[in-house]
């Protein structure tokens, strides 16, 4: 029987550190809560009423949830930005920007696999593949946009410091109505993103066979030993 060292099996790699996983799930919960409460605020459902107005407060609670979640979402986002400079190389800021030819090539490879459903040639980067990274980079801009517009709308009913920082966007966009409209439009971005994101995680879990789905729970991903040996030889996974 072969020894473990000789078997070209899989080796596990600690890809997602705890702060990254925490960020991911806090963000996921926040986005779901924000979209759900946001949608309700946009078009509240008709709740049968037999009571007087002072006896219920459900819409107030929905709005309160939205606002509290927004603060958590915002600071969670800031922590993730910090971790982009403090975390391991899979969490680093440059994973989100196609800074090299290899990354651009990988983007096309992922498009080929995802859209044309062709067989994966070689291996994708063990962290975010280049296309995923780029898409997440774009979502950060949407996060930023939603934070700015959300806090700007909130600033008129708040005297606290943070929302006031964003009040300038209201005259720029031409009034609360327009800000609210665009804040609402981008809610749909999150809905569509969530559908495609969750599906692609499952799809890549299957295509790559490296534990993509569970990695965001435990942090481990798996790579074949022979691939890793080859990569170390080329110093590939460091410098790309």
């Amino acid at each position, binding site marked *: 029987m*072969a020894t473990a060292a000789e078997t070209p099996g899989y080796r596990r790699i600690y890809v997602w550190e705890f702060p990254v996983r925490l960020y991911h799930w806090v963000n996921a919960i926040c986005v779901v809560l924000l979209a759900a409460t946001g949608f309700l605020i946009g*078009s509240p459902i008709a709740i049968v009423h037999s009571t007087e107005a002072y*006896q219920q*407060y459900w819409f*107030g609670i929905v709005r309160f949830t939205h606002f509290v979640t927004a603060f958590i979402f915002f600071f969670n986002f800031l922590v993730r930005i910090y971790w982009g400079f403090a975390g391991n190389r899979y969490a680093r800021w440059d994973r989100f920007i196609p800074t090299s030819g290899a990354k651009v090539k990988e983007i096309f490879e992922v498009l080929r696999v995802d859209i044309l459903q062709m067989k994966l040639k070689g291996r994708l980067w063990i962290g975010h593949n280049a296309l995923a990274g780029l898409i997440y980079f774009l979502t950060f801009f949407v996060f930023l946009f939603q934070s700015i517009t959300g806090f700007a709308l909130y600033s008129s009913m708040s005297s606290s410091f943070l929302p006031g920082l964003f009040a300038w966007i209201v005259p720029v966009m*031409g009034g*609360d*109505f327009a800000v609210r409209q665009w804040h609402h439009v981008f809610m749909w971005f999150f809905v*569509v993103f969530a*559908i495609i994101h969750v599906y692609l995680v499952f799809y890549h879990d299957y295509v790559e066979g490296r534990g993509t789905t569970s990695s965001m729970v435990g942090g481990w991903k798996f790579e074949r030993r022979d691939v890793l040996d080859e990569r170390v030889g080329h110093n590939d996974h460091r410098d790309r």
Partner: protein
Amino acid sequence: MEKMPSLWQAMEQKGYSRREFLQFCSFAAALAGIEASGIGSVVEAFETKHRPPVVWLHFQECTCCSESFIRSSHPIVADVLLDTLSLDYSETLQAAAGHQAEKCLRDTMTKYAGEYILLVEGSVPMLDDGIYCTIGGRSANDILQETAKDAAAIIAWGSCASNGCIQSADPNPTNATPIHKLVDKPVINVPGCPPIADVMTGVVTHILVFGRIPELDSQGRPKEFYGRRVHDTCYRRPYYDAGMFVEAWDDEKARKGFCLYKMGCRGPVTYNACSVTRWNEGTSYPIQSGHGCIGCSENNFWDNGPFYRHLASFPGFGIESTADRVGTAVGIAAAAGVAAHAITTNIRKRKLIDETMDESAEAKRKGGDA
């Protein structure tokens, strides 16, 4: 330079009693949001300060601002402001006409240069050299620039002068432009279509009493009147927080006076004092009368339609399309695409699994050899 008499002197001349004068001072103080202890300074200001002459220009507008102004809740305020405020030039209200009127304007501008208050009602067309609005053969912009040069303060009455209002609605055929974009002096924007009469007199009072323009927000509106949303002080607000909404104009909930949010009420995005001062001597305001706010004091309110829906039509997708409809369509398309993708993936699954089995078998064989 010739000085105008003070407000008190002017009132005395017209036969008002001291009591009536003090009454007026209290009204004015209340309107400008000055606390009771400050009434003394209002009295003093009206006794000693000479009345600033006022020039009131009319450009692209419907005169609803003037109509609103002369219907101030407290007749004494409107009376006195109109009687004794030295309204030297106002196309609608002045007795003079033609060359006489033009002479009034010219006299005021030369005699009181740097002292007169300029009130502008209406937007200024800038397309084709402003040919779409001319008075006495001169374009609106020409007149505005000349009068604005030596004005002590400029007030833009109404939405037309503050943000362009209906004239500037898409496609804005005359390039109707609000005043603050044309003059390089600070302009007090008093938007609304029309603005509330008491807000108008309040702004004028502030300038008369304090001799300076009131504190303005980022859009040039006096904070004391435009600091809060109609929604924040609306008497139907408790229904909003309780989630009790009118669903149709003729339903039970409309009769009970529930919140009009779902009927497109713009209260939550409109900054004005309607729900505080109300209209027509404090009688009512749109929401109290059962109709949602249309946001007439907000930028672009005319293009943010339909008024009876909360979200504007989404540009490029037809009149009935809101962001929600477009979003739902995109969401369904994404879900359908994902489903189709999953189906084709599963069809190809066998081949992929076979290949992977080969891979594993090969690996096992290699491992065995070693």
